[in-house]
C-alpha cells in the first residue's frame, strides 16, 4: 500500500480529513478502508446543510460485499458533497485521497485531540497487520 499523505489527519475509523484554505474540512475514507471494503458500488451522501457531530454517522459506503458507515471526524455542517460518487462510487477505490473525497464540512473549530497524525495512523495500520 502506498505511503499516507502527510498533509492529512486521520481517525480510528479510517477516515481522513484535510483542512482547506477557507477553513472548511474535506473528509474521505483511507486507502486502507477502501481496500478492505473492496469495489465500492454505492455511496449514500448526506443532505447539504445537515449538521453532523464528531463521531456520528455522516454517510454510508457500500461495496459488493458490505455496507459501512462513514463517521464525521469533527462537528460541523455539510457544505458540499461529492455528487460524482452517486454514479461513480469506484472513484473512492481509484483515488481515495483525491477524486474520491466524500463530504466537505463547515466547522467552527477542530478538536485535534481526537484525530491522528499520519505517523500515528500508520502505527495503527502496522498494529492491525500484526
Amino acid at each position, binding site marked *: 500500500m502506498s505511503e499516507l499523505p502527510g498533509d492529512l489527519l486521520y481517525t480510528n475509523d479510517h477516515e481522513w480529513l484535510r483542512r482547506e484554505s477557507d477553513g472548511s474540512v474535506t473528509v474521505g475514507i483511507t486507502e486502507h478502508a477502501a481496500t478492505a471494503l*473492496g469495489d465500492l458500488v454505492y455511496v*449514500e451522501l448526506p443532505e447539504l446543510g445537515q449538521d453532523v457531530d464528531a463521531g456520528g454517522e455522516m454517510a454510508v459506503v*457500500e461495496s*459488493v*460485499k458490505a*455496507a459501512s458507515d462513514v463517521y464525521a471526524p469533527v462537528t460541523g455542517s455539510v457544505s458540499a458533497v461529492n455528487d460524482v460518487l452517486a454514479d461513480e462510487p469506484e472513484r473512492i477505490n481509484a483515488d481515495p485521497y483525491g477524486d474520491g473525497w466524500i463530504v466537505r464540512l463547515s466547522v467552527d473549530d477542530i478538536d485535534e485531540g481526537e484525530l491522528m497524525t499520519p505517523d500515528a495512523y500508520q502505527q495503527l495500520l502496522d498494529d492491525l497487520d500484526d
Partner: protein
Amino acid sequence: MGSKTPLYDKHVEAGARIVDFGGWDMPLHYGSQKEEHHAVRRDAGVFDVSHMTVVDLSGARVSEFLQYLVANDVARLEGHGRALYTCMLNPDGGVIDDLIIYFVGDEDYRLVVNAATRDKDLAWIGRQAEPFDVGVVERAELAMIAVQGPRARELAAPCVAMEHRDAALALKPFNGLFAGDWFVARTGYTGEDGWEIMLPAADAPGVWDRLLAAGVVPCGLGARDTLRLEAAMNLYGSDMDESISPLEAGLGWTVAWEPAERDFIGRAALETQRNDAQRRRFVGLLLEDKGVLRNHMKVVVAGVGDGEITSGGFSPTIGRSIALARVPAGNYDRARVEVRGKLLDVRIVKTPFVRNGEIRIDV
C-alpha cells in the same frame, strides 16, 4: 489458522485477500471482485473450490439408496456421466444440504456437497447408507478447480491429457467423464459455460499456472457469490437450511414427485406443504432505486405481510442491486424493502437475472 487447499500458495502468489470460509483459508478476491466477475461473464475465470467435499458412493444397491436419500430421482440420469442437482432432506422436509450427484458407473456415484456442512453430511449419509450396504468414501485428497466463462473450455482444454481432450470438449452441459484420474464435468455455479475439474492435489498447482498463463483470470469467493446470485443459484445456509423445504426455496423443480411410490426422506412433509395455499414464495427482486439489498433485510408487501431477503447484493452485470427473497403467498409483483430505516421500491422478477453473459430481466 484454517485448512488450506493445495492452491493456497498460488492464491498468496496472485495477491489474494484471504478470508476464513467454513474453516478454510480461501481467496475473497485478488484485487477487484468486480473485474473477476466480468471476466467470467465475458471471457474466462478460474476458482479454487477444493474446499468442497467430494464423496464416492459404491455398491450393488447404491441407486436404490440414492432414491431414498435425496429428493430428486437418480433414475432420471439416463447414462453414465450425467449429473443431477438435488437436495438431501430431513424427515421434516428441511434441507440438510444441496448437492450434485454424478452417475459414474452402474454401482458408482460421485457426490459433491458443501464444505461448511461436511461433518453433518458425512454423518447423515453414512448412517442412512448402512442398511443398503453402500460404501461411502470421502475423497479429501482431490483438489477441485472450476473454470468458467464463454471461453473457459477452450482455454482449459490444453490442460486435459491429449487422449481425453476431445471427449472432454464434447461433453454436453451437466455431464462429466473420467479423464485418467481426473474427473471433468461441464457444470458450475456461475450461470456460464465451463468445467469443474476434480483432480489429484499434486496436479492442481500446475493446472492453475497454465490457466493463468493462458489468460484465465483468478477469481475469489466474492465473485463466485455475485455470479451465482445473478444466475439465481441458491446458497446453502443463506437461501435454505434445515428449517426450510426446497418448495420454499425455489427448488421445487429438483423434487421428483413421480413415481409416487418412491419413498425418499422428507417426502411426506413435502406432500403436505405442496398443497398449502399459504406456502411462501421464493422470488427474485430488482431494486428500482440506488442502494444495495442485503441478506436478512425485511421485505414489506402492502396488505399481505412481510418477507425476508435471503441473498442480496449488487449485480455487476446489471449495475443495480438484486436479491433472492422468501415472501408471503399471494399474487403481487411489487414490494418494498427496508434499507436502513427507509422503504425502497423493488420489483419481483423472473429469475435468473443473468445467464450466459446476457441480462434476462427487464431493467
